[in-house]
């Protein structure tokens, strides 16, 4: 492995415990191992009973698994969080402005700051959205931005998830679990609360209702009970006190969306949809979609219903657009980006492809349209055979890939089979945009449980940790 030095969230290079972990480390040291063991078993049993599971694609249908939960929290000092939060707000604001611009006057393309082809020929660009006005000019109401710490501890943005980012329910459940298992820890620490997230989400969704609707009806739309994130869909609907609908529950009449209820049709104003663009409306997008609502796009374009997130946000979180986000911040906000972007090589460019092919063992190569940790190569963690087989894919379809230097992701002590060992992690804070931008402190911390692994996705065996933003 080329990389040996990692930033440890809990201990400094000289082996001393970092100040914000001092209280927790002392508690861990004082707590008998068998009590911890009991609590870990209790956490497992509770997650099972609550049915907090996710379905795994590619396995026998209906297979449900628990996402492993680790009881050592990821702690972020308030000061660090403050600058991280400022950076995230700045970034999401620029991204929303970008999407609005792309679907209206395309100033940024005219100014030559981003090659027009990159945007307009992107599969995620939706011509159907050109000229359509959306409430507050906001497209990505919910963004889940993946952030990692690398090097000496600086934050990098890995991905801007602006379509249907998931994971927030685990953030909330992890906190509930920690408070249930270790109430004494919360008495000792000033942990910033996150429990009001569903309230904030409902507020955001109501704030972007179609103009003139005084008391909007909000629903959560799910692909159904077999979707991998179904638990989360049901959880959020329940926490917000709104209906959880499937496509079959909705219909469109005179460009107005209704849901079928036991008392007859009822109008729907805001749809927090957890269904991809392609499946939303069989009349407009994929004709074979069984989970969509015929006529939904037409009602949406007529401004009679709000979709959250908007259609076509993928044009801004695509991996081929990612390298231009700092440029967007400068162009629209006239500010310097607060958060770092990871240097990115776009394999569609011959010189970048040549560099990538020459440095495969050091790089991370990702599919431009991939997600969920599928179809990627982590050079330093791969065998020669894996690298060579990936090289063939890359040479055959270079435009499908980007590459980035392998970041030395920070790690954090984590319970593993043989006790406690450092494991790599990332952070997904959630940014809500409506009439204002809102966030709860922290986010979802995902941890790669396999030794040395840098892939934190739950579908690839990742786990989660509670995330504490700690007031001093």
């Amino acid at each position: 492995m080329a990389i040996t030095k990692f930033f440890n969230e809990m201990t400094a290079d000289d082996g001393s415990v970092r100040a914000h972990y001092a209280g927790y480390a002392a508690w861990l040291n004082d707590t008998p191992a068998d009590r911890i063991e009991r609590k870990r078993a209790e956490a497992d049993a509770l997650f099972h009973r609550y049915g907090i599971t996710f379905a795994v694609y590619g396995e026998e249908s209906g297979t449900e698994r628990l996402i492993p939960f680790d009881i050592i929290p990821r702690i972020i000092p308030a000061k660090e969080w403050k600058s991280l939060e400022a950076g995230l707000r700045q970034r999401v604001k620029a991204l929303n402005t970008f999407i609005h611009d792309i679907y209206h006057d395309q100033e940024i393309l005219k100014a030559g700051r981003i090659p027009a082809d990159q945007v307009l020929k992107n599969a995620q660009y939706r011509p159907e959205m050109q000229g359509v006005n959306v409430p507050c000019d906001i497209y990505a109401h919910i963004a889940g931005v993946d952030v990692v710490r690398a090097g000496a501890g600086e934050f990098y943005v890995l991905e801007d998830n602006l379509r249907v980012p998931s994971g927030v329910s685990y953030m909330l459940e992890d906190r509930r679990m920690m408070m249930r298992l270790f109430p004494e820890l919360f008495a000792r620490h000033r942990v910033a609360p996150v429990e009001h997230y569903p309230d904030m989400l409902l507020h955001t969704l109501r704030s972007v209702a179609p103009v003139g609707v005084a008391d909007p009806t909000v629903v959560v739309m799910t692909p159904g009970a077999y979707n991998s994130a179904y638990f989360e869909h049901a959880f959020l609907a329940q926490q917000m006190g709104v209906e959880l609908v499937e496509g079959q529950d909705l219909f469109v009449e005179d460009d107005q969306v209704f849901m079928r209820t036991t008392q007859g049709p009822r109008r729907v104003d805001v749809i927090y949809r957890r269904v991809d663009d392609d499946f939303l409306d069989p009349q407009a997008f994929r004709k074979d979609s069984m989970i969509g609502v015929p006529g939904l796009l037409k009602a949406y374009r007529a401004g009679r219903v709000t979709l959250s997130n908007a259609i076509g946000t993928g044009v801004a979180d695509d991996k081929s657009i990612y390298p231009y986000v700092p440029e967007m911040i400068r162009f629209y906000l006239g500010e310097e980006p607060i958060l770092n972007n990871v240097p990115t090589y776009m394999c569609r460019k011959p010189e970048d492809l040549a560099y990538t092919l020459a440095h495969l063992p050091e790089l991370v190569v990702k599919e431009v349209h991939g997600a969920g940790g599928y179809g990627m190569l982590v050079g330093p963690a791969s065998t020669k055979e894996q690298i060579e087989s990936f090289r063939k894919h890359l040479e055959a379809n270079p435009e499908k890939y980007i590459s980035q230097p392998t970041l030395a992701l920070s790690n954090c002590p984590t319970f593993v089979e043989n006790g406690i060992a450092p494991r790599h992690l990332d952070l997904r804070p959630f940014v809500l945009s409506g009439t204002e931008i809102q966030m709860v402190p922290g986010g979802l911390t995902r941890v790669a449980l396999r030794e040395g692994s840098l892939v934190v996705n739950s579908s690839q065996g990742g786990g989660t940790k509670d995330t504490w933003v700690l007031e001093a």
Partner: protein
Amino acid sequence: MLSRTADHLFWMARYMERAENTARILDVTYRLSLLPQNGEDVEPMWAGMLKIMELQDTFLAKHPRHTTEAVLEFMIFDKDNPGSIYRCLRATRENAHAVRGTLTSELWETSNETWLKIRDLTPAKLWENGPGAFFEWVKYRSHLSRGVTIGTMLQDESLRFIRLGTFLERADNTARILEVKYLNLLPGSDEDATQANDYYQWSALLQSVSAFEVYRKVYRDQITPLRVAELLILRADMPRSLARSMKEVYSNLTRVSNARSAETERLAGELESHLRFGRIERIFEVGFRNYLEDFRDRIFDLGCRISDDFLIPACA
């Protein structure tokens, strides 16, 4: 509330109730099969039960003979038998899963836990502890789920559709339990009931619907077929009787009433008042089997109408 949500709640409750009543029917038949007098009649007894549960063909496609082991394993574990307890509990859990956001977390967890347990049960474990213990377990899981429902759910439409499902299913199932019994023994004069064999049969039936002590309390007299029928059909204070079930169906139905449901409510009310004002002697004159079959047809019709008016049309 969403029609689909109401549909899931309705069926979640029906399947849980069906699992419980299947356990009850199996329990009473199993007990009867153990009576020494019934040694040679065990197979016809199981065959009769399967016929009333409308599962005879499914069973015969797999098993040549109605042995106790074959029937019990078919009715408890068989994944291909839509009436097996395994399938009922799975369907309960699947329906609950689809609307878990509408349920209180305790209700969802109850149903999920029940499913996790039956999923891990094997025939070996069943025979090790005896089927009786298993039937008991199913009944208690159903009691628990009903208790959690009443103890935690908001008294709104969701609760009404859950209760509708519970009592519509119970009305059907209690009728079937009575039919199973009468298949083997047609009611004769009161003297017949004094025979030891009859006594065991009637008391097993009463126990299967948790009505043995109730019977003693209400009648303070020996067990006769006529009174057993009266208790389980006409007594509205008996929780598992047809009269009670229909009373609950009717009152829950009128509370979710919508623009299309007038005729359904009328039919439910008609059936309910027949039970309320009916006399057991009259029912015996009509013929007991005919009466029960006609009753079940009406329950089936009501189920279809409820689906059409409120839920997802089922019997198109």
